């Protein structure tokens, strides 16, 4: 006699479904393939949308001539300089605001009233102050990075468990050590959220500043080829910006994993 039975199976298996590694490249490969086909069939004129292969060719040409790298290095110098300055000052000021109620009361209204200004609107003023050299571009990027980092660091500090501060004080920590050993590591996850947020902002400000006033740089290169209607070289610039953003984010993620292994 065959027994009747009802097997209970895992009804939430979809929550832990295994996805093969190729899936993440699938979407982007298909997109590029369609793009290439559309261009090869000349459905869209190459002036409006050059084929991926044409962009790669143009990129190779520009690499060989050295044009790409001289522009890239000019941009990297500005963005890394501005980012480093803005992030460092942002973290320090954020920690100070979070730790000292006096600093919070005096400086927070200032920070919050400058924060909503689109920083690019300040560029003409900054050029007036600092001239048209490298400095105003670095400064405008630093400004754009500074605010998100300050605000995130500040709320990170405020979210540190007061119990941990009490524990540290009990075991003999002075104020400086409380900041260094408790408040700083405790707010690191929030600080990184701010750093990632401002990575995008810094790229935006870089391109905008270079389009307004620069001889060299990815932003001015894109604008230049746009004016000349050489679209495939323009797209090389866009591609480089996309890669730059990706690289920026990956680097931050890597640093975060190194510095926040306990999460």
């Amino acid at each position: 006699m065959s027994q009747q039975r009802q097997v209970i199976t895992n009804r939430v298996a979809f929550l832990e479904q295994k996805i093969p590694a190729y899936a993440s490249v699938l979407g982007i490969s298909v997109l590029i393939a369609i793009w290439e086909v559309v261009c090869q069939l000349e459905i869209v004129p190459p002036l409006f949308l050059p084929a991926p292969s044409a962009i790669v060719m143009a990129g190779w040409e520009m690499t060989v001539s050295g044009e790409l790298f001289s522009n890239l290095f000019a941009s990297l110098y500005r963005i890394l300089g501005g980012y480093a300055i803005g992030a460092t000052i942002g973290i320090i000021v954020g920690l100070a605001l979070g730790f000292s109620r006096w600093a919070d009361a005096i400086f927070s209204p200032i920070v919050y009233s400058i924060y909503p200004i689109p920083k690019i609107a300040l560029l003409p003023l900054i050029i007036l102050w600092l001239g048209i050299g490298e400095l105003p571009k670095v400064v405008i990027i630093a400004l754009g990075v500074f605010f998100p980092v300050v605000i995130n660091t500040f709320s990170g500090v405020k979210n540190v468990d007061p119990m941990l501060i009490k524990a540290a004080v009990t075991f003999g920590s002075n104020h400086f050590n409380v900041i260094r050993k408790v408040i700083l590591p405790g707010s690191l996850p929030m600080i990184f959220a701010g750093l990632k947020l401002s990575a995008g902002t810094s790229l935006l400000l870089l391109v905008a500043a270079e389009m307004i006033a620069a001889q060299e740089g990815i932003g001015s290169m894109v604008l230049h080829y746009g004016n000349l209607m050489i679209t495939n070289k323009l797209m090389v610039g866009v591609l480089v910006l996309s890669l730059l953003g990706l690289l920026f984010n990956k680097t931050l993620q890597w640093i975060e994993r190194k510095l926040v292994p306990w999460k």
Partner: protein
Amino acid sequence: MRIVIENVGKTFVDTKKHEVTALTNINFSIEEQEFVVLVGPSGCGKSTLLNIVGGLMSPTSGSVYFEGMAASDKKPSLGIVFQEIALFPWRTVYENVIFGLEEQGISKQEQQDKGKHYIDMVGLTGFENSYPKQLSGGMKQRAGIARALAIEPDLLLMDEPFSALDAQTRTLMQEELLTIWNRTKLSTLYVTHNIQEAVYLADRVIVLSRHPGQIKEIIHIDLPKIGRDKDEYRVQFEQYADQIWQLIRQDAQDALKEG
């Protein structure tokens, strides 16, 4: 060295601007190598009292002092084991245990020796490099205890250290704590609402009542320190527990009604 709690009182101002007396007229002392347990119903201010003794809160009146220590001597060290455990999540077990030693500025070598010694004492050898997140509740609190013991404090304070643990782990941890305590013999102030725990651990039990929090009675537990759970002491053990329960019962019922 004795720790004296003299005329300590604490009043809070509540949200409706009323003065609430949390503690009043608290007088007792902790002798050298004595294990004192504060027990009372919820809301009797026992944690407040421990915070005052631990220097995490100032009393409204009275004072807490170490007798036989000149003001010029180095500050007495306090080791606190928190109810919330309060391990630093970004530090490994080892780094948490040596935190207090770091702050004392002793040599790296000494930090290592003491760290290793106390990690071994609480049975966490092999977990030195784990982060708190990777440990079970019981193991976290062992690390918390090791951190407090490592500085070899003049007074050890424990604020319901096992209340977050399950009943089985809790029983085991109580046994372990006794074993450890017998090796270190630190003057200890321990807060709990668990009467069995109080009778099991204490040299003296201080029973607090609520509204306002004050000492209702101080009971010497006249049993050998080790092995109170043996059959031969069962009757006496239960008598002590019952005596304390009768003192607390009414207050505990009132506390329940107030929610």
